[in-house]
């Protein structure tokens, strides 16, 4: 038998991907005419026809009805306000209520995270550094040879291909599960004319379901293919192929390959893929008695709970939606039966069970709701809710079923039962099939049904960048982060903010992002005042492409404020009048910034008792005005001018003397003299600017109590931030750049610092710069008034000060006073006798570019040697 297979051919992987994705295109043959897998008649055994008779796009036909399937858009749930969550539930309930009279099939499938798809996109989105193997023979010092040769012989040479393979192995190891929810709405079939009318109704339904709430779109052929396969072969490994047009060969191949076996009265059914020999056991559970729920305030969506477990759980709800009229009829019948029963007891003179009176009152209350309420409160959803768990062995499958039952009982007080006739219950998961039996029917208002919210997701990140960890809140999912995603895809700013207490993991995250981005060819600059991140530059794979700049030992003039602000070049702007205008505007802005920076630095260099002296600051201002605002200017010119005026002007002479005092000290010389050529010329993929040995003052203590060294450390740190950013404003505007600035709080205290941060946020899109500002206090960032320009926020552990925790939640745009402060205090917790270095990962709350907030675990342990390089804690002396 030959059938037409319409699946498109996959592009053949090339390069390193070819090794990582072997046999990718061989699973389902493509092309116009292919032989489908045929089972010899003798092997076929007894067969049962599926009720489905025809498949047209998202429409599943049986002999009696047609069901239109839609895929629901995921709804993000964690850390959202209760008001927003209630809005989602109410909107979904309204859509369910509008389906009155229809049979509905809600189906949630669990699928493995598409590692290969991510890997393909990630690799295509990267411009990796050349592998270090090519540099083995070019190292004149020969100091790297031993390490690399050892690695090479061990087969772990840190090449780009190995980097991808490590990421793939990490993702495979955790077997992350993603969920897809589909809803099918059935219409009865009634002749050709009736069919046209049905299609009209389906078109209306499509429009109706696309509204907020369910936000459903007609299922694609790929979705249908997946749904069919996952329903027939629950728990079996899906074939590796991309979605395409659905053809007969596809379905026959998927369904006919599955054998189901069972033992009498067994609680499991064995499914076997005859092509691969894979075997799984499946158990179907039915939702039983449900207690009252308070969603979202106390309980989570009752369907979503099953999606948070670390094994796949399939969900199928077969429902009949009853409108107010039908609900009223059913309920009144029931109410009358209860009344009649009570009357019977009275007539027979037998004491009635107490529950009857209670149930009559309850029924009367429901009847009142239905009689007088809106359609939303009056509509009902009657039906069956089934869950299927699978495992490689029957014992494990039953253990999972027990675990699922326990979780539902403990967390939601919902009873799950394992009914008999498991094979028939499994068929219920298949589109077009009927409910298996009448047991465990649940009757509930549509609002309760909508509160199941099966399409909830906790996924965060952009799904196309580096693997930085996984979500750590109600169901694990990998977190991928491309720092340039906001600029390149979303037209948003590239400003990222990182806030945590000391030891909260700031350096770990910043260093990890720098490493991962440098490997992908992003030009990275880190300002790490304390210096441990310089270890990254010693990693074999980065060493040829990295550079450490120690400010404390830098050449005089390195922090010359005039040279720290780059002059825009005309060739960086488009030709034409508009380009001219933008160039001149930026040119003038750069000059203004230069003047402001020089003024602020002069002020910082003055001793605190003179910093507020109006005459001295006025004299410095006057001198600064006379100096050209060019990159070649120097602070020495200020001193010269003040000295010249000092013969008649005492404050000018004092100012000249005070500024010149700084020039006598080694570190003070960094601000004076011409900037060396090497200041911003480094083209290294990773540059780490450190200030080793420099002691930063305690900002809570007044300046007058700082030592001279501490006083000098502040302007040095301040100027170092500008030096780090200077690298981003040279070269190709579109080239990807990353800048990580630690101790960003010093910027907030000075006008030029604030304007620098605002400019960094605004320029990030134009220059394709992703900036990460790290600070210990969220107030430093909030006071800048750049919240609208922040794309992502990372907040680490904040346990000591509740006020800071509240500010951090404001930064995340999370409701305060709702208990999330405790979440911040509980991040990256270790016991009293534990070492924080032994933590497998560092926890953060992350807000992404879409405004979603989630608890994530930054885990870069899959990169060999990275955690050791990022260890910023001092070792105890041995």
């Amino acid at each position, binding site marked *: 038998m030959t059938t037409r297979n319409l699946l498109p051919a996959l592009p053949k992987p090339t390069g390193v991907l070819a090794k990582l994705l072997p046999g990718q295109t061989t699973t389902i043959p493509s092309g116009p005419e292919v032989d489908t897998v045929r089972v010899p008649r003798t092997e076929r055994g*007894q067969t049962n026809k599926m009720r489905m008779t025809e498949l047209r796009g998202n429409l599943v036909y049986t002999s009696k009805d047609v069901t239109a399937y839609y895929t629901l858009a995921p709804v993000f749930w964690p850390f959202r306000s209760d008001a927003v969550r209630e809005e989602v539930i109410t909107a979904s309930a309204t859509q369910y209520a509008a389906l009155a009279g229809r049979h509905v099939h809600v189906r949630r499938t669990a699928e493995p995270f598409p590692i290969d798809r991510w890997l393909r996109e990630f690799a295509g989105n990267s411009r990796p550094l050349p592998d270090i193997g090519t540099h083995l023979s070019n190292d004149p010092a020969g100091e790297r040879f031993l390490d690399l040769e050892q690695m090479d012989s061990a087969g772990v040479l840190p090449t780009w291909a190995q980097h991808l393979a490590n990421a793939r192995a990490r993702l495979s190891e955790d077997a992350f599960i993603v969920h897809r929810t589909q809803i099918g709405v059935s219409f009865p079939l009634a002749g050709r004319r009736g069919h046209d009318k049905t*299609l009209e109704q389906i078109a209306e339904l499509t429009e109706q379901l696309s509204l907020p709430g369910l936000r459903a779109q007609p299922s694609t052929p790929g979705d249908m293919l997946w749904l069919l396969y996952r329903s027939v072969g629950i728990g079996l490994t899906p074939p590796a192929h991309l979605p395409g047009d659905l053809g*007969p060969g596809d379905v*026959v191949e998927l369904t006919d390959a599955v054998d189901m076996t069972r033992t009498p009265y067994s609680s499991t059914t064995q499914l076997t893929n005859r092509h691969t020999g894979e075997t799984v056991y499946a158990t179907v559970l039915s939702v039983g008695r449900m207690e009252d729920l308070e969603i979202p305030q106390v309980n989570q969506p009752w369907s979503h709970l099953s999606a948070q477990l670390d094994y796949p759980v399939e969900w199928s709800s077969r429902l009949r939606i009853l409108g107010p009229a039908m609900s009223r009829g059913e*309920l009144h019948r029931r109410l009358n039966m209860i009344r009649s029963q009570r009357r019977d007891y009275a007539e027979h003179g037998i004491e009635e069970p107490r529950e009857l009176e209670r149930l009559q009152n*309850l029924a009367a209350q429901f009847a009142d709701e239905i009689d007088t309420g809106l359609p939303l409160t009056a509509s009902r959803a009657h039906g069956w809710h089934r869950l299927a768990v699978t495992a490689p062995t029957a014992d494990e499958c039953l253990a999972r079923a027990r675990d699922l039952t326990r979780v539902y009982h403990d967390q939601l007080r919902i009873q799950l039962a394992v009914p008999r006739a498991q094979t028939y219950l499994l068929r219920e998961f298949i589109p077009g099939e009927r409910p298996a039996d009448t047991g465990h029917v649940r009757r*509930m208002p549509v609002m309760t049904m909508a509160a199941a919210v099966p399409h909830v997701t906790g996924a965060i990140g952009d799904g196309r960048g580096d693997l930085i960890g996984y979500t750590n809140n109600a169901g694990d999912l990998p977190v991928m982060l491309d720092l340039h995603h906001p600029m390149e895809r979303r037209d948003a700013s590239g400003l990222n903010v990182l806030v945590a207490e000391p030891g909260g993991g700031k350096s770990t995250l910043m260093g990890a992002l720098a490493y991962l981005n440098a490997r992908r060819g992003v030009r990275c600059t880190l300002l790490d005042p304390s210096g441990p991140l310089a270890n990254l530059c010693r990693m074999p794979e980065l060493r040829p492409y990295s550079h450490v700049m120690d400010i404390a030992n830098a050449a005089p003039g390195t922090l010359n404020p005039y040279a720290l602000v780059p002059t825009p070049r005309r060739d960086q702007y488009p030709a034409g009048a508009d380009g001219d205008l933008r160039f001149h505007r930026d040119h003038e802005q750069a000059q203004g910034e230069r003047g402001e920076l020089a003024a602020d630095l002069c002020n910082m260099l003055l001793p605190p008792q003179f910093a507020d002296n109006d005459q001295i600051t006025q004299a410095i201002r006057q001198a600064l005005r006379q100096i050209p605002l060019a990159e070649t200017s120097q602070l020495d010119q200020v001193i010269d001018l003040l000295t010249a005026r000092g013969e008649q002007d005492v404050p000018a002479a004092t100012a000249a003397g005070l500024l010149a005092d700084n020039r006598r000290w080694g570190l003070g010389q960094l601000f004076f003299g011409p900037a060396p050529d090497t200041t911003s010329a480094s083209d290294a993929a990773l540059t780490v600017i450190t200030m080793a040995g420099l002691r930063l003052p305690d900002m809570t203590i007044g300046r007058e109590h700082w030592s001279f060294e501490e006083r000098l450390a502040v302007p040095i740190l301040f100027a170092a931030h500008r030096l780090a950013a200077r690298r981003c404003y040279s070269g190709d505007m579109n080239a990807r750049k990353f800048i990580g600035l630690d101790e960003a709080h010093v910027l907030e205290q000075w006008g030029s610092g604030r304007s620098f941060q605002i400019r960094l946020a605004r320029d990030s899109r134009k220059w394709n710069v992703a900036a990460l500002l790290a600070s210990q206090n969220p107030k430093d960032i909030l006071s800048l008034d750049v919240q609208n320009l922040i794309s992502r926020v990372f907040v680490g552990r904040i346990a000591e000060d509740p006020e800071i925790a509240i500010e951090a939640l404001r930064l995340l745009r999370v409701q305060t006073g709702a208990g999330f402060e405790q979440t911040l205090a509980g991040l990256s917790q270790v016991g009293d006798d534990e070492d924080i270095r032994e933590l497998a990962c560092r926890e953060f709350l992350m807000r992404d570019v879409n405004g979603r907030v989630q608890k994530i675990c930054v885990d870069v342990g899959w990169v060999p040697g990275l955690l050791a390089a990022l260890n910023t804690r001092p070792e105890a002396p041995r």
Partner: protein
Amino acid sequence: MKLRTDDAIWRARLVWLGPPNYSLPWEWPYARYGTLIALVAIFGGAAIAIARGPGLASVAVGVALFVNAWIWHNVDPDVPALKVVKVAFIDRVRYHTPTQTRTPRLSARHIRFSPIPATPTSKRKATTR
């Protein structure tokens, strides 16, 4: 948002206490009388067919009573009597081999595939134009 189901009122135990002015010593649900009548009819019919007369009628009633008791022993608000009977048949009787049994394979070979139908709405728009 407080949410609940309507299940409680469907769990009410509705029993037939007996004819007016006489209370039966047992309290059976209405449906139990129905299943008993059905079982008596089935077993009685079978007994008459086997014995070619009413000779085994009392045995048939006894068996019906026993089977009815067994069915209702397994019934609860979530497992109706029909399901108990169905499970007894499909889970034990139909596949009665002591070892694992392959259930009939699901066949999709009869399914037809057609392109997605154009919605009448779009057709109507075209004709209006």
